């Protein structure tokens, strides 16, 4: 199983992770259309945290013992048994914000509609998540963890 790890010593704070994440989760998959035309504007699921000189990207860490899964009121937040990823089912989400309350990373946000939450889905369908693939300085890397 793979996980994303942020290396703050390599992060230059450019914010490309946010841009590529937003585009990847847009309808058009095109940066200009995603930022200028799509309404509501698609929401990135990674957040660049900056407190100069420190910066790093934060996205769902797909915790082994995930507090959001245990706390979820509706059953929308689930652990995928085969991949170990924490998967959010927006169809089941009731938008109660309980997962936001318990995520130690602050990695879950309200989506653009303000009615459900949104979080890193590990770019389902891609071999390497967009934030990792497009980080110019190796500050986001994939590591292999034991299942």
């Amino acid at each position, binding site marked *: 199983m793979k996980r994303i790890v942020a290396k703050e010593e390599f992060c230059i704070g450019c914010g490309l992770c946010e841009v590529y994440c937003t585009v990847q989760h847009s309808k058009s998959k095109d940066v200009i259309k995603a930022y200028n035309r799509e309404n509501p504007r698609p929401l990135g699921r990674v*957040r660049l*945290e*900056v*407190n100069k000189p*420190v*910066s*790093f990207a*934060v996205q769902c860490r797909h915790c082994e013992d995930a*507090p959001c899964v*245990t*706390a*979820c*009121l*509706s*059953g929308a937040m689930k652990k995928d048994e085969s991949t170990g990823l924490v998967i959010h089912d927006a*169809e*089941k989400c*009731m*938008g*109660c*914000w*309980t997962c*936001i*309350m*318990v*995520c*130690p*990373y*602050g*990695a*879950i*946000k*309200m989506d653009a509609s303000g009615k459900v939450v949104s979080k890193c889905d590990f770019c389902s369908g891609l071999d390497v998540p967009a934030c990792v693939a497009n980080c110019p300085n190796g500050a986001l890397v994939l590591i292999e963890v034991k299942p």
Partner: protein
Amino acid sequence: MAKYVIIGASAAGISAVEAIREVDPVSTITVVSEEPCPSYSRPMISDLVSGKANFEKMLCRDGQFWEKNNVQALTGQRAVSLNLKEKYVVLDNGARVSFEKLLIATGGKPFVPKIEGADKKGVFTFTKLSDAESLAAEIEKAKSAVVVGGGLIGVSLTEALVKRGLKVTIVELQNKILSLILDATASDMVANVMERAGVTIVTGQSVQRILGKPEDERVVGGVVLTNGNSVQCDMVIIAIGVVPRAELVSGTDVKTNRGILVDRFMRTSVPDVYASGDVAEAYDFISGENRLLPLWPLAQLEGRVAGYNMAGKKAEYPGGTAMSALKYFGIPIISIGLVNPKNAEGYEILTRYEPEKRLYKKIVLKDDVIVGILLLNDIERAGVLFNLMKNSVNVKKFKQALLSENFGLATLPSSLRKRLYLE
């Protein structure tokens, strides 16, 4: 003879099944559930009333949950007594179910004070699916409702009724709504948006008497408050709160206070008998004492802890505390721990209040450790604050940054970040 018997198939019960199966894939599990339907999210019953959710959306586990976890589910059956010496549960049909390990996860039931006229048609309680269904069935005919109780359940239901076009009066005994989880400023902010949505809020009052309709005494027509004022309505919903359903253990050696007392491993005072969820009084890490905390996330956590321990994997309950996330009337709110200490002495209180943005944030500190978090409208960093609170982190060096707009993991000193997040 089942190795594990679980009474109750809501949050705590099903979480226990999952935990047991992680450790013990083969031994027999029997679950006794009074409700005939699959396990559903009780916090979503307001969404059923408002029309936002149907039952399918409310199912909080896979439809094949029992089959997938190889559980013998005795649904639509009720446990009526326990014999803890001979280790069996008696069901309402007279059957005996023997156990090696028992989990009591019977939950809570609505607290209903004695009110004259409460037997009239149109009076409801509001904690489970059947309540929501019978309420929803009457809504088309109703124009107005009185909700008794201005807590979490009352406010969630009020929003649902407003969405369905009813004129709602909410009656709260305390002098503010949501008084258990908000302070006066936050409560006023919520009251303000509720009033703008057309809700009438009456505080410091309770319902003394439920009146009938002039044309039919047996049907709800209004209420009389303690101050003598009357309010016309077509339905009355009692939504004051829940009390533990601990009747099963009365007359046994299981120790109770208001609920069943459990230790940090969810064990009761009787060997091999566990309890979790709204029926249990478990550890609160803020007060350091056992306390009733009828909250879904804690019930699921407690159920997991019980399940692990029942199956032989030692797991300690980290403790819970009052913690609620609210979505009602367009104001996201998160309230954790002691947000409104009765006696402010010994506490340091940090606040940020920007009424024009409807933003309010408050952190309560004791000896530089966070013991209370209250956030209105800007809630996305709540979990980072909660993590500092759970770990009793001394925040002296960065407390001024806790309420800032860009507070996050990068705000934390790197040594602390490393300790909390990388080790």
